[in-house]
């Protein structure tokens, strides 16, 4: 069983039998995501924050902004780093301690989706070239796990970054100093949105629940931007996809993603 979620054989048969009749356990269409609600500003101490609920999956994302020394090879760009962790309150299978490979993958896929889209214009986040830049850190905490954490983290991160306020810094004596009470708008260029699809018995299902997640043969997470281009992708699970399936999945991702993007926009 993937990710250590054990579902008894009966449940698996039930899910498969229903799929053959064109139905999902919770009554959704194959290309229909669960209800998404986003609340922003839930953590006032963070420079940006969002709580995303995708069905019963819940993620809280918080953005912290602070000046950083840039990486040696990208001194003309700010920094943007996303992480994700599954809190032990989220599910009986969640453990404390160093992150296991599935959690490392979750964090890296979340980060890639945001970063590769070029969501923030990093060139605008430089205080002094090669010396000091603005670092934007978006940390996701999964508080309730009902499957498809990839998308929940994607939506929470995008909403949190989209609504964040970046404190104004000025260089004084070669050191960045925060100007109290002054903020700049984040240089948003696009809103990346991921859509994860599970492949079960040859069927492609958008936004799998934890039960579907437990029995899926393979999955694919495709992130698209506001222009309808594909910006990041991750295949997972112990089966493959045909070329036709991959093209269908990308189309689905762009279609479903555009509706989700509207929800994120309206949350601001």
């Amino acid at each position, binding site marked *: 069983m993937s990710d250590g979620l054990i579902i008894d054989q009966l449940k698996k048969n039930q899910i498969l039998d229903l799929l053959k009749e064109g139905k999902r356990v919770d009554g959704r269409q194959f290309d229909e995501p669960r209800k998404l609600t986003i609340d922003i500003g839930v953590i006032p101490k963070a420079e940006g924050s969002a709580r995303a609920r995708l069905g019963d999956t819940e993620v809280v994302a918080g953005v912290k902004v602070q000046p950083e020394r840039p990486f040696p*090879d*990208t001194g*003309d760009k700010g920094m943007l780093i996303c992480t994700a962790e599954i809190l032990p309150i989220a599910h009986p299978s969640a453990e404390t301690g160093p992150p296991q*490979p*599935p959690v*490392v*993958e979750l*964090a*890296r896929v979340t980060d*890639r989706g945001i970063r*590769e*889209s*070029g969501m923030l214009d990093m060139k605008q986040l430089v205080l002094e070239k090669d010396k000091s830049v603005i670092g934007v850190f978006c940390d996701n905490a999964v508080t309730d796990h009902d499957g498809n954490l990839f998308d929940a983290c994607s939506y929470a991160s995008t909403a949190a970054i989209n609504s964040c306020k970046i404190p104004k810094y000025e260089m004084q004596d070669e050191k960045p100093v925060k100007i109290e009470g002054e903020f700049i708008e984040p240089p948003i260029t696009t809103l990346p949105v991921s859509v994860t699809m599970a492949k079960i018995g040859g069927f492609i299902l958008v936004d799998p629940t934890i039960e579907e997640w437990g029995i899926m043969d*393979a999955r*694919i997470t495709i992130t698209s*931007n506001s222009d*309808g*281009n*594909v*910006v*990041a*992708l*991750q*295949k*997972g*699970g*112990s*089966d*493959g*996809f*045909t*070329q036709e399936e*991959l*093209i269908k999945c*990308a*189309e689905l991702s*762009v279609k479903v993603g555009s509706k989700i993007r509207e929800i994120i926009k309206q949350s601001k």
Partner: protein
Amino acid sequence: MGGRDTDIVLLDENGIRSDGRKVNETRKVTIKAGVLKNANGSAYIEFGDNKILVGVYGPRDVHPKHMSDTDTGILRCRYHMAPFSVGERKNPAPSRREVEISKVIKEALEPAVMLKEFPRTAVDVYMEVLQADGGTRCAALTGASVALADAGIPMRDLVAGCAAGKAADAVILDVNNEEDQAGQADLPIGYMPNLKKITLLQLDGVLTPEEYKQCIEIGIEGCNQVYEIQKKALQDKFFASGEKQ
């Protein structure tokens, strides 16, 4: 994509890339099967300037025991880069990147390996990147399939790996390190040519839906070429006429 600025011309006016290749050309790939004495199966692959050794152990007892499965064998993969494999010394401890790549390679190989034949056992695949030059995950995956076959483990197909991508606004095959750093997109693909199934797929960088289709198409074509080299490596080992290895 690092999106780093560079002075290198990724594609000149004649459509020739920085290392002299055409847009739809892979780097030179050589594979040798059965290069290690102790491993049950092994392979050495050179994919352009990538140099990777793969060793396979198993099917064997599972340690720790709680990881074993009574219904099926399990596949465990470790992708690891040597500290001297890249420009600046890499910390030898496994990074988060390596943990993720190990996981996607494992999931790329699982559809090919008939693990149900060996319940309660493990097959361990160790991929050691000795020199890296972009596209190591595809190269490691390619070498790993050959090593698994060399170990005599029943397989449905070999998995061949090759990346497609975008640099200087052109769709290109087999992205090298420079193109990965300064290019616009990298889309590594793992493909089972007989079963026509894509088992590894990742992307970073921006592609239009049309470019995405082209990348998958050209990437599969690259995998088909790599597949022929994989088969030849196995033929060379097992059917070389009277030649002692």
